[in-house]
């Protein structure tokens, strides 16, 4: 047992001695190897970052085009369907007026029907104007919000790309100057992290730009609700007046 212990102890001491001898050599060789490998492959190492930025910027642009197309299609479809709806309902109201006129036998009743028709058409026009105005205001607000957002995003992405280019140029210059690979890498990482954090901060601010749209949306929503409420009031009064006239 003692003999074994001596052997193990001697072996460990020997191992520690060997390690102490080879460690600095290995460390130096490793550092030197990394330095050479890092700087000789710097373009190759950076390429994926640049490629991803290019690809994702292209995807962002494609997304913008998709949004534009979607928005245009929605608006065109909405306008067309609303126009059809109104034309159909205009025709239907005319048919209603004709039936009402047929029921009016006296001049007073005929006058009451004519008055009802005028009141309704005026109310419908007022309501439609309010609605169209609200839809138009929302459209403008959406366009403006998108434009403002895109301008801000373009600025943020440009700053991020510029920061990346600066960081890459610095890394290459440091390589040429023989700066230690670890230092170059850490400097590059710090620069890119700062640029990325700045972009995130910009992005969070951009997200808040929605406020302008929300404000317009809420104001116009209230306007439309009021227009509809006014229209309902007008219609109920007009209906009540006509019923009274036709019963006489």
């Amino acid at each position, binding site marked *: 047992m003692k003999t074994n212990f001596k*052997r193990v102890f001697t*072996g460990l001491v*020997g*191992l520690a001695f*060997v390690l102490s001898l*080879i460690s600095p050599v*290995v460390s130096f060789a*490793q550092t030197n190897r990394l330095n050479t490998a890092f700087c000789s492959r710097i373009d190759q190492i950076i390429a*994926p*970052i640049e490629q*991803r*930025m290019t690809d*994702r910027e292209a*995807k*962002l642009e494609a*997304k*913008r085009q*998709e*949004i534009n197309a*979607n928005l245009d*299609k*929605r608006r065109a479809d*909405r306008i067309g*369907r609303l126009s*059809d*709806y*109104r*034309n159909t*309902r205009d025709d*239907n109201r005319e048919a*209603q007026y004709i*039936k009402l006129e*047929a029921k009016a036998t006296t001049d007073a009743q005929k006058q009451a029907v004519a008055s009802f028709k005028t009141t*309704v058409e005026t109310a419908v026009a007022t309501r439609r104007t309010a*609605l169209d105005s*609200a*839809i138009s205001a*929302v459209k403008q*607000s*959406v366009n403006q*919000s*998108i434009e403002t957002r895109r301008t801000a995003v373009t600025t943020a992405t440009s700053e991020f790309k510029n920061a990346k280019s600066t960081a890459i140029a610095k890394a290459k210059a440091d390589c040429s100057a023989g700066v230690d690979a670890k230092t170059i*890498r850490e400097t*590059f*990482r710090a620069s*890119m992290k700062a640029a*990325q954090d700045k*972009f*995130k901060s910009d*992005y969070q601010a951009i997200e808040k730009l*929605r406020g302008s*749209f929300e404000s317009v*949306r809420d104001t116009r929503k209230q306007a439309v609700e009021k227009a*509809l409420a006014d*229209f*309902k009031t007008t*219609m109920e009064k*007009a*209906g009540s007046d006509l*019923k009274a006239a036709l019963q006489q």
Partner: protein
Amino acid sequence: MNDHNDKKIDEIVERVLQYTDDGKSSAEIFALFPDYREELREIFFAVEFVKKEGGKIYPDKEIFRQVMSKIPTSVTNQSNPRYSFMKEAQGRSSWSKINNLTKTLNSMTINWKIIAPFGAVAVVALVLVGVSQFGTNSQQAKIAENGQVQEQSTAGDNQAPIAVSQDLPVAKQEPATGDVNETVNAILADASAEGTYFADAIKDGELITADSQSINNFGQSYYENEF
């Protein structure tokens, strides 16, 4: 008499072997010992046989066992106490395998004295290389992992675009009855329906931020552990 004869033959054998080593032919040797031709013939036959079949000659097992049992256990008169238990185990078949294993182990112990230092250095070298390689690889793996995650999030970039609304009201031609209440209700229904178009216009606002994921993905183009 026999002893004298045997000694004489032993001397002759020694001299014959010497002559043979000196390169003399068998005829010359026979000529030197004319009275021992018969014995010389046997000797030469034995020498030729050994020369020819030497590698294939095996002793009788029983004879070999007897010879080996007479050989002392060590070169000194004192036997190694470490192997004394083997004597006790002799004759027991269950111990024979253990004995063989013990012999192998003893042989390995001796080998390890030589192999261990070289092995330790080799292991250290492998560990150092492994750490450097694994470090690089694991970093690359992280990058790949990150890359994968990021690519997955990029794949989620395609947000479902807001479809063109299919729930917008379609106008119907309602029958005109001439009833005031029915007429008023029909016109009021128009107002409610048109309000749906405004609600649909508000939905356009969702497209303002429909590029959020794309912007976010662009911001994630750089992986911190990549460089």
